[in-house]
């Protein structure tokens, strides 16, 4: 696990060598091994210094999350933290020099080990990352990271790194002072480590020196007071809905900065214990780690056997097409980007090029890789050039007739085994494939915008889609390192369908006369990154209108049975046709978007509420109060999620949770919309829904599946697999 080498110069090199096929992780066994080693080494007077490095491509990638799996009390988590802290403290208190020779990623506990060393030198490799990413999974550093990093580089610089969980490149880490030196290769790395040991036989940590320099942002001076006063409000604002981690991290840094390192670490460990045992942390870890892993491994072995996807055609060089082309090319796939003429396609490539340049600037991509990426994208305007593609993704505008036309053409020109995908956020695949000769080779791939940043892809199996095509689509998603969820066909699939409810419920509230400010604040208070009206502007009012009309068409009705649905449609139509408010894209939606000032809710939106003629339909309860507004925006999404289970659109709980977090910014602390359905028990949910139904209309009627869950005695949708529809992907038994 850790290999020891003692050289003639009496320097010990400890090489971390974890489980094969895995990154180097801090497991229970690793901790115990390290503890024993450190005990022996620090007692041995003949050893002059110690080098930590690794035998593998990473240095140390953090904690093995199995460490936390079986723990059920805050104190148990606290103990894990203390154990690591104590070992690291022993290492740094040892009166001989210790160097971290960082040959690969040093993340989380890996960086914490390095921070406990007297000197950190790393290989100057573009891809090597250094950071404390714990917060992203709902956790926080527990190996002294919240204490040593601020002491090393200053509170002001350390705080955002820990709060955002940002991983730095080697050069960034060097510039900010985390790394002391860089080396070009493994040999130089170890040479530099040895040189430090020889020159600093009695190296001490700066925070263990008698005279230490106070941090200017420590809350012992006015500057520090003001810094933390603003920090706590900013953390609340910037990490809304992201769980308890950021607040605990901030408190650990604040309190720790007023204490000696030993007590400061203890404070960190207490916060760590409290956080890891919190619901928000468990929810986030469950969905953002285990849930995502599960989504990403679904069908993996079957997909492996498929031939590599070498060439992809992308129809439509608009924003979505550009994004899809970019991510494909980034993973080594040849892309043919097609539009009505070459000029239009070229314009798309120019946009991609700009994005790629930005990536280079941010050090996410090397110049060489960026050139290779761009070289993989070719523009075309003729269908017959697609004849060699393994997969063609149509990414035209959301217009059913246009999409149908494209697919008719495609069928004529593609090779036999080519699979076709439509990138749509809502249009049922079955509608798109109407009239095709071979609809079985068509699936839906719903990419999210901006494509390079959004990890989720909704993979849609239409009624006709065959297993091979589904797997091919899945293969592409795997190749792009994105997270797939597999859903059944239907208007809006899962994500758009549920997410749209957040918007339409807001419009219903507006039509009842609720102030838009109250609606927007309610959404944010629930933990959504944006209020529902802001989001409506982002997705464009036309898209919402089209969806509502498509829904009416599919339900074969002119007017919806639920009058509130009609009012929603009326508002959107009025804003589009009467006020020419289309959303953010024409700088006029429910908000106004002036050129040089921040957006503001439009007076017309306020008027919409003020002039509302509608009393709610089913009863005369007056305007909903703030808690009721929140409850409606919240529960309507749960109703729709349950209906998706009921109708087989969705058939696993973790996919629903993952998609809600990655797809529409559902508040991370909840773990996802499915966990929210389970949170307070289905009986309670039933009761709350009945209350809402009585007060606000039929759309809150508890879905039948809720009754089934109660009757069968499932306490969680995670356990209720057998009542869901058949899996959409037939997996081999060992998969």
């Amino acid at each position, binding site marked *: 696990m850790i290999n020891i080498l003692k050289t003639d110069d009496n320097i010990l090199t400890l090489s971390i060598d974890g489980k094969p096929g895995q990154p180097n992780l801090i497991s229970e066994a690793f901790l115990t091994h390290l503890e024993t080693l450190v005990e022996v080494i620090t007692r041995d007077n003949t050893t002059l210094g110690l080098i930590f490095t690794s035998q593998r491509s990473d240095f140390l990638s953090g904690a093995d999350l199995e460490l936390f799996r079986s723990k059920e009390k805050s104190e148990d988590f606290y103990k894990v933290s203390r154990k690591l802290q104590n070992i690291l403290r022993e290492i740094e208190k040892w009166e001989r020099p210790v160097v971290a020779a960082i040959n690969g990623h040093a993340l989380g506990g890996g960086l914490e080990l390095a921070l406990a060393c007297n000197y950190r030198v790393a290989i100057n490799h573009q891809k090597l990352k250094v950071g404390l990413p714990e917060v992203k999974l709902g956790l926080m550093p527990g190996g002294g990271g919240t204490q040593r990093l601020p002491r090393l580089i200053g509170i002001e610089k350390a705080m955002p790194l820990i709060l955002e969980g940002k991983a730095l490149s080697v050069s960034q880490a060097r510039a900010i002072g985390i790394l002391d030196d860089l080396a070009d290769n493994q040999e130089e790395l170890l040479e530099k480590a040895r040189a430090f040991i020889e020159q600093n036989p009695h190296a001490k940590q700066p925070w263990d020196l008698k005279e230490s320099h106070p941090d200017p942002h420590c809350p012992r001076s006015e500057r520090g*007071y003001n810094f933390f006063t*603003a920090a706590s409000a900013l953390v609340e*604002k*910037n990490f809304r809905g992201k769980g308890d981690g950021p607040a605990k991290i901030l408190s650990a840094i*604040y309190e720790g900065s007023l204490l000696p390192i030993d007590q400061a670490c203890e404070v960190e460990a207490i916060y760590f214990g409290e956080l890891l045992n919190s619901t928000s942390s468990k929810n986030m870890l469950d969905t953002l780690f285990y849930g995502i892993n599960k989504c990403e491994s679904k069908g993996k072995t079957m997909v492996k056997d498929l031939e590599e996807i070498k060439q992809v055609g992308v129809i439509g060089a608009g924003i979505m097409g550009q994004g899809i082309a970019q991510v494909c090319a980034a993973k080594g796939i040849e892309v043919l980007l097609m539009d009505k003429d070459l000029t239009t396609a070229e314009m798309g490539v120019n946009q991609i090029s700009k994005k790629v340049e930005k990536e280079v600037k941010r050090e996410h991509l090397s110049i060489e890789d960026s050139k290779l990426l761009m070289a993989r994208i070719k523009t075309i305007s003729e269908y017959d050039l697609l004849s060699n593609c393994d997969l063609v993704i149509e990414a035209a505008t959301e217009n059913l007739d246009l999409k149908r036309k494209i697919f008719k053409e495609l069928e004529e020109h593609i090779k036999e085994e080519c699979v076709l995908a439509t990138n749509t956020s809502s249009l049922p695949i079955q509608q798109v494939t109407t009239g095709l000769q071979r609809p079985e080779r068509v699936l839906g791939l719903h990419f999210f915008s901006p494509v390079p940043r959004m990890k989720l892809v909704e993979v849609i199996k239409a009624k006709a889609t065959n297993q091979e095509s589904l797997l091919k689509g899945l293969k592409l998603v795997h190749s792009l390192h994105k997270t797939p969820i597999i859903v059944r066909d239907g208007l809006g699939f899962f994500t758009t369908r549920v997410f749209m409810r957040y918007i339409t419920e807001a419009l219903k509230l507006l039509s009842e006369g609720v*102030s838009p400010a109250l609606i927007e604040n309610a959404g944010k208070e629930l933990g959504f990154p944006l209020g529902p009206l802001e989001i409506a502007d982002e997705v464009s009012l036309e898209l919402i209108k089209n969806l509502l009309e498509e829904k009416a068409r599919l339900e074969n009705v002119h007017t919806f049975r639920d009058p509130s649905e009609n009012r929603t449609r009326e508002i959107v139509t009025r804003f589009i046709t009467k006020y020419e408010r289309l959303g953010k894209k024409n700088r006029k939606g429910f908000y106004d978007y002036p050129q040089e000032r921040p957006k503001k*809710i439009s007076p017309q939106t306020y008027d919409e509420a003020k002039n509302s003629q509608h009393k709610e339909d089913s009863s005369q309860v007056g305007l909903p109060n703030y808690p009721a507004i929140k409850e409606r925006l919240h529960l309507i999404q749960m109703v729709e999620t349950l209906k998706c289970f009921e109708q087989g659109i969705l058939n696993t709980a973790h996919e629903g949770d993952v998609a809600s977090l990655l797809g529409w910014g559902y508040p991370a602390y909840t773990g996802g919309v499915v966990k929210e359905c389970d949170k307070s028990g289905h009986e309670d949910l039933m009761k709350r829904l009945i209350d809402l139904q009585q007060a606000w209309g039929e759309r809150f009627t508890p879905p039948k599946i809720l009754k089934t869950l109660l009757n069968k005695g499932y306490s969680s949708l995670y356990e209720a697999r057998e009542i869901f529809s058949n899996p959409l992907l037939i997996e081999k038994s060992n998969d």
Partner: protein
Amino acid sequence: MSSATSLKEVFIYDAVRTPRGKGRADGNHLTIRPVKLAAHVIESLVKRQGLNAQTLEEELEDIILGCVTQLGEQGGCIAKAAALEAGLPTTVSGLTINRFCASGLEAINLAAARIKCDQNPLLIAGGVESMSRVPMGGDGGALMMDPHTANLGGYIPQGVAADLIANLNRYGRRDLDQWAVHSHEKAAYAQDQGYFKKSLVPVKNALGKSYLAYDEMVRSSTNMETLAKLKPSFANLAQNFGFKERALKKYPELEDLEGFHHAGNSSSIVDGASAVLLGNQDVGKKLGLKPRAKIRSWANVATEPTIMLTGPGPATIKALKKADLTLEDVDLFEVNEAFASVVLKFIDDLKVPEEKVNVNGGAIALGHPLGATGSMLLGTLVDELERRDQKIGVVTLCIGGGMGIATVIERVIS
């Protein structure tokens, strides 16, 4: 309390204050040590009332001073330091207290309580703050900077809270500026007419030269046009440091938090001190002191901490109830003008006539030396009740952390 003790009436025998000097590097009180400011008002009071050393040894157990930023030269119990600096007998003890902006009035209420319970016949209470030498905020505090506490209380800076009051109650910039202009007009007129003379005790240096004879922030030239030029002071804090979001979390009916307050419609930053001589009836008779007013009642409240500055209304109602008085009984109100919106809100909440509020201007014009303001307002109120030959007055202040305070006094008509 032993059965021998009976409740005593509490009389105000005298009140003095220094002028308020601009609390900046170019202010006229800058070179005066805070301890000197405090000592000066104590000494003036003692001299004016002819209290000799023996009397002080026998009757004056303690000096209670309010002081907010108890740090450096204002730290370490400045009340005791001031007692020594003032040359009082060494038997006189000192107590310094901090209830933010109400500290000076709190000192008086505390003294009143001790006199009322017959534990002290005579006390001096007041406050001191040299904001130029010991800037406010210099002492930190968990309410604001401890992330855990600040989150629980929903802390936003006071100026942002004042803007929040304005936004919620739809006070526009014009309303607030108008009050500010009015405050200057009233203060300038009162200054001109010599209404403040009775309590003012200018500080002199060792060479006998007075530093400042009047409150130096009052500007009769202030008008709507000059104020219109000033930029909002707290908009940046609200918009860019997360405080708007914190405010909207509690007040979701607002879409935005517009900045309305600026240097001209917020209290000015000044240096000053004040002291009040309080005692029971017997000690007054014994020493030949003339009672000017008596303290009828007082009250503290704590309201929603984020909006923070809405305490004066409920504190006033509570204190009046304790004195068995109604709002209509009150002749004059001194409402600390921490920010213009605070006073407008007080007037709206209690529906009292504007003409009874801050008749000689307020802290926007005169200044708000944090720890000293409460006792200064009390002195101003006694003077004005006498001048107008009126009876009942209320002093009230908003306080950080969402607190509020009010004291009800009744003039002794001889």
